[in-house]
């Protein structure tokens, strides 16, 4: 049992906002909680959605200082593809430009000035692009399980994985969550790890594959990261020691290239800290959020 009483409402409220971006219209779902002065925008992982951030949205201490926004990218969760396009006639493939542009368009449209952006996995990658290209509009970024480059075959994103993720003879509702389940740490609570499993069993067909196209194939920020100015936009990293996708050595390499960035390797944590072990993750996140507030 969670200890929540019957009838308890979580503080997050969900809404839909229509965003005109890149010549199309996107009905975009987001959840919002908190009364703090600082907007904190949270980016979900590949093939998943904003449900991953329910513990951040519920945390009282965070809500006092921040107003938390967690939105579903187009094609994910309760956000649709651009409904007036023939979206069903093409494979979905996320790109760096679309991803970064859409995050900034969300923030601008909602008037989230000097926001802090926190992203995990593919969200942990794109925060580097945001800091590099849009740092003057942001206060700070927090990268979870961040890497500037994924050597695909060494991390299990095999050359034919995208074909596997679209293969008609493979039950994607079962394969996808089982494929990512072991990215979580052995010590993380089984019930929380199965929450990740559940989210990953529910993506639209081909969406995880299209995100992996970005995450493990297109993405390469190895040259760009050294140009990030942490005086303009703070950069903080948290990476789990059991994450074999964005490995500690990967984030360490990135942090070493960005003067002024901070990095903490999280013990007994895997690739999905926000979901797999929220209590332990919050212990790592709180000092980072304090640093962000102190630097404003």
């Amino acid at each position, binding site marked *: 049992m969670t200890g929540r009483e019957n009838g308890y409402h979580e503080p997050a409220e969900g809404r839909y906002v229509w965003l005109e971006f890149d010549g199309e219209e996107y009905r975009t779902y987001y959840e919002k909680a908190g009364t703090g002065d600082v907007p904190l925008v949270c980016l979900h992982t590949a093939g998943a959605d904003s449900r991953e951030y329910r513990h951040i949205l519920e945390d009282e201490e965070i809500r006092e200082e921040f107003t938390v926004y967690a939105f579903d990218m187009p094609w994910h969760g309760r956000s649709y593809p651009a409904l007036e396009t023939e979206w069903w006639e093409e494979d979905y493939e996320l790109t760096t430009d679309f991803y970064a542009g859409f995050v900034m368009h969300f923030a601008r449209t909602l008037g989230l000035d000097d926001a802090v952006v926190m992203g995990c996995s593919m969200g942990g990658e794109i925060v580097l692009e945001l800091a590099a290209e849009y740092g003057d509009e942001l206060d700070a970024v927090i990268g979870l399980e961040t890497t500037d480059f994924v050597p695909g075959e*060494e*991390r*299990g994103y095999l050359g034919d994985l995208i074909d*596997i993720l679209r293969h008609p003879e*493979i039950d994607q509702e079962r*394969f996808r969550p*089982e*494929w990512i389940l072991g990215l979580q740490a052995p010590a993380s609570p089984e019930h929380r790890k199965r929450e990740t499993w559940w989210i990953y069993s529910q993506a639209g067909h081909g969406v995880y594959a299209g995100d992996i196209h970005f995450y493990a194939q297109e993405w390469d920020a190895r040259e760009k990261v050294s140009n990030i100015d942490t005086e303009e936009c703070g950069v903080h990293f948290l990476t789990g020691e059991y994450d*074999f996708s964005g490995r500690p050595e990967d984030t360490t390499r990135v942090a070493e290239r960005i003067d002024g960035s901070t990095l903490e390797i999280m013990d007994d944590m895997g690739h999905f800290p926000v979901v797999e072990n929220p209590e332990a993750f919050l212990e790592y996140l709180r000092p980072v959020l304090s640093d962000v507030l102190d630097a404003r």
Partner: protein
Amino acid sequence: MPEFPSAEWANEVVRAANDDPQFARLARHAHATVLFEFGDQSVAFALDDGTVESREPSDFAGWDVALRAPMETWEKYLSESPEPFYNDLRSVWTQHDMTIEGDVVTAFQYWATLKRLVANFEVAR
């Protein structure tokens, strides 16, 4: 406990898996012969719609999928508290020296089934 790996150990795996309701769920409609190689020893298991039987090398002519790794790798993977990157079938395959051969579609179709079968390796040790 029987020596790992051995025919007696394989029988224990079969007993544990066939008593495991989660294995029965995950192995529904699964039909494949899977070879596991532990260094220079090997055992095969035949999945058959929710149940499993062991096969010694002399008892079968072929396999659909083969998972091969040195004993040291299996020991680390099957340990109670695996080190980082030894904690999942995917990680010992992609980060270390396990190889997966044969019909890759079958391997991915039965990925959850294989992981649950391997979980019963630990039960039988």
